[in-house]
């Protein structure tokens, strides 16, 4: 199913690119959004706040371009698991924060009603990422030129005859 893989790459990668690009302009805001979850020790909060947007952007780019899809998708899984833990723990602790998923962050009076949707979205994207770890090959991917160059394989991984 080479087209399914391509579609999932664009979907998940697109979400990461948007999320990363929206957060890059304001590093201080990104740091505050990380701090708002009250999960990480203060010494690492700024570094995580500075690193997350660019990591998200790069994961998104690797997926959309099809560059090292398996590694990018695995990292995408790790990030979604972390965000799912973060959001559900904020919900469980009764914190009213904007997830900061696409910039922003901090207090949000309507946070309670948003959490379920955010979790559903992240779960869906987690499954899409997991699929790509399992079946990383798809159409229009740089991997097809870089990694599988000259091996004359079909996209399902079976050697062609």
């Amino acid at each position, binding site marked *: 199913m080479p087209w399914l893989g391509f579609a999932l790459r664009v979907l998940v990668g697109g979400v990461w690119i948007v999320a990363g690009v929206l957060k*890059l302009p*304001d*590093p*201080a*805001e*990104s*740091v*505050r959004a990380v*701090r*708002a979850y*009250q999960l990480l020790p*203060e010494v690492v909060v*700024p*570094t995580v706040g*500075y*690193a997350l*947007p*660019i*990591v998200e952007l*790069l994961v998104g780019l*690797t997926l959309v371009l099809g*560059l*090292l899809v398996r*590694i990018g998708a695995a990292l995408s899984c790790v990030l979604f698991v972390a965000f799912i833990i973060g959001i559900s723990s904020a919900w469980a602790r009764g914190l*009213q*924060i904007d997830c900061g998923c696409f*910039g*922003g*962050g*901090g*207090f*949000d*009076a309507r946070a309670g009603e948003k959490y379920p949707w955010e979790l559903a979205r992240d779960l869906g994207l987690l499954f899409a990422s997991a699929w790509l770890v399992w079946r990383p090959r798809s159409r229009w991917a740089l991997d097809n030129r*870089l*990694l*599988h*160059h000259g*091996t004359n394989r079909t996209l399902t991984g079976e050697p062609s005859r």
Partner: protein
Amino acid sequence: MTKKQSKATQQANMQRASERAAAIRAEHQRKERRTRTLLVSAVVVAVLLIVVAVVVAVQANRDTTGQAGAVPSGAVDTYSVAMGKPDAPVTVTVYEDPMCPYCGDFEKVSEDKLRQYADSGDVQVRYHMVSFLDRASTSKYSTRAANALGVVLDTAGSDVAIEFHNALYANQPPEGSAGLSDQQLIDLAVKAGADEQAIKGPIDDLKFQQWVVNATNDWSKKGFQGTPTVTVNDKKVGFTSAEDLLANTEQAIQEALTK
């Protein structure tokens, strides 16, 4: 002994040999692909890690949080504009963003009441401005307005600064707009009692911008994420609406006074 093999045996041997050769070739190809995959992956991952490291360094550099900056003279507890006696038994701190509409609602219901508490000598009220809503305007209004408040405090003192603070909320621009212009801020400040000549330069040049950045960081590090946040003797007051916030604040003040 016959050295001649039957044609069938010969063919079978040849086929086995070619299958072995094909298997060796395939194995060789497999190894080559593996090596290639590892090499390409290692190079790409290394490049991406360098990109992450560089961007983290750039972002850390762009974020001036924590750097030393000029503090307006007359600021209380470094970041606040205060009204009421410094030795009042109760301290009420109101954390606000100039752009935040709920802060505007709270100001409407609380301004007179809090002034009464301050005048009575029981309470010192501190307004601690933050600028986390800079992206809610097209001109970083939160930073500009909070800077202007710092300038007025610095040049004209607390009483004028409190007047100007109240004027900022009485004339609060809607979210998503360009906010008030620097000139409009200056006009409001002059009306509140500041000297135009003294405030124009520092308002235009954002003299206390770093102070505003650090004030926002201070608020965030105290564990607060939204505005308005009100504390009574450093204890956060819960609320569901502006009226509710004022009622809970008054109750906390009374409790603190009777203790």
